[in-house]
C-alpha cells in the first residue's frame, strides 16, 4: 500500500473513531477502526508498514483512551505483524476468513492490553466482556464486508449493467 493511501487510511480511521464515539448510538456497532486500518495495511503483505501503522494507530488510541501510552501500540504492532504473516503465509481469502481473523485479532488486542494493564497499572484483568465480544463481532463483520467489497468485480458488474441498459 502506498504511503499516501496509508496516511489517508489513518486519518479516516481516526475520524470514524470520533464519528462513532461521539454518537449516542456508539454501542450499537462499536467497530475498532484502528484495528481495521492495521488489518487493511497488513492485507497488502508488507510487514514493515503493517507494524509501523499498528504502532502509530496504537499510540493515537492510547493518547485518547489510556493512562499509559504504548499499550495499544504494542498490541497493534504485534497484531499488524501477525495479520501480515497470515496474509503472506496462509493464502486465505474471502470475507469469512478475513472477518474471523479480525474478530480474533480484536480479542487478542484486548488480551494484550489487559495483561499489560495488569502488569504496569495493577489493574484487574477484565476479559471477554459483553462489550469486547460485541466489538470483535462488529470489527470482524465490518472487515469481512470490506474484503467482500474489495473482491467484488465492480468493473464487470458495471459493464454488464451498462450493456443491459443499452439493450
Amino acid at each position, binding site marked *: 500500500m502506498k504511503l499516501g493511501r496509508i496516511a489517508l487510511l489513518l486519518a479516516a480511521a481516526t475520524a470514524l473513531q470520533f464519528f462513532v*464515539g*461521539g454518537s449516542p448510538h*456508539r454501542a450499537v456497532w462499536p467497530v475498532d477502526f484502528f484495528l481495521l486500518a492495521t488489518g487493511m495495511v497488513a492485507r497488502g503483505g508488507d510487514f514493515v508498514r503493517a507494524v509501523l501503522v499498528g504502532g502509530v494507530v496504537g499510540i493515537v488510541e492510547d493518547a485518547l483512551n489510556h493512562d499509559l501510552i504504548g499499550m495499544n501500540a504494542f498490541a497493534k504492532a*504485534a497484531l499488524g505483524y501477525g495479520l501480515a504473516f497470515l496474509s503472506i503465509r496462509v493464502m486465505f481469502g474471502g470475507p469469512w476468513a478475513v472477518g474471523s481473523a479480525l474478530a480474533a485479532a480484536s480479542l487478542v488486542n484486548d*488480551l494484550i492490553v489487559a495483561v499489560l494493564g495488569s502488569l504496569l497499572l495493577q489493574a484487574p484483568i477484565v476479559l471477554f466482556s459483553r462489550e469486547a465480544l460485541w466489538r470483535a463481532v462488529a470489527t470482524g463483520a465490518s472487515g469481512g464486508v470490506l474484503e467482500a467489497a474489495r473482491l467484488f468485480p465492480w468493473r464487470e458488474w458495471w459493464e454488464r449493467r451498462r450493456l443491459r441498459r443499452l439493450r
Partner: protein
Amino acid sequence: MRLTNPRAEVLGPRRHRGELVLASVLGFCILILSAQAPARSRRGSVLQSWILSAAAPLASAVSALSRTVSSGAESLQSLWQAQSENERLKRELAGKNRELFELRAQASQRSEDERLLAASAALPNLRGAAAVLLVENRAGFQSAVIGAGSAQGVVAGCPIAVAEGLVGRVVTVGHAVSRAQLLVDASAAAGARISRTGELGVVRGDGRGGLHLNNIPTTSTVAAGDLIESAGIDGIYPRGVPIGRVTSVGRGSLFLEIRVAPAVRFSQLTDVLVLAPSPAIVDGLEGARSGRP
C-alpha cells in the same frame, strides 16, 4: 485454504526486515511504558496532553457531524410521530390549562421551599458543560474524551457528572479536550455512602459496566434498591451525588458483597457537567506550581 503461498518465497527478506521493525517497535513501546509507569501520576503525561490538544479540532468537527447525522435521523423519525401526537396534545392542553390555574399558587409556595432547602445542601460547584467526543471500553479500561480543556478551566481531578449521577473524573487535560476516567473503569474507586443507613464504603468499577460497593460490614441492613451516593471522603468527588442503586447483597467473610447498578447510562453519554475540583486537588496543583511538596 492453502498453506503454501507463492508470495511467501518472494517476500522472504522483507519478512526479516519486518521482524526487525517489529522488535524495534515493541522495544520502543516497552521503553516508553517503562518510562511512564514508575513516575505515573493520575494526571497523564505531557505527550498525552499534546496529542489530545492536536486532536481537538478533528474530534470536535467529526463529533459535531456525528451528532448532526444522528439527530437528523432521529428528527425524521420523530416527525412522523409528531403529527399524530400533535392533535392529541392539543386536546390535552385545553384540559391542562384549567388545572394550571389551581396548581400555580401551590407551585409558587413549593418552589420557594425547595430553593431554601437546596441552598443549605452541599452543592458542588459547576465549571460548565462539555460534549462527550469519544467513549472507549477496552479490557476493563473505560474512559471518555470530553470537549472541554484547560481553556475552559478544567484541571486534572475535576469530577464529571450528569443529572442522573456521578460519571467519573478528568485525568488528562488538553487545551480544548480532556480525557476522563469513568466510574465503571476497572481501576476506578470513589468513597460512597448508603443513603438510607449512612454507612460508608468504597465503590469500585468492575470494568464491565457495573459497580461493587466494598467495605460494608456484614452487620449492615443494606438491601436491594438502596441509593448509593458519593460520600465526599476521597478528596476527589463531592458529597451527595448519586452513584447508583444496590441490585444484590451477598455475604462475604468480613464484608458484604454488594453489587450496584450505576445511575448513569454510560453507553449513551452525550454531554457531561464538569464540577470544580476538590480543595485537596486544588492545593496539590498550587503546590506543584509553586514547587512546594
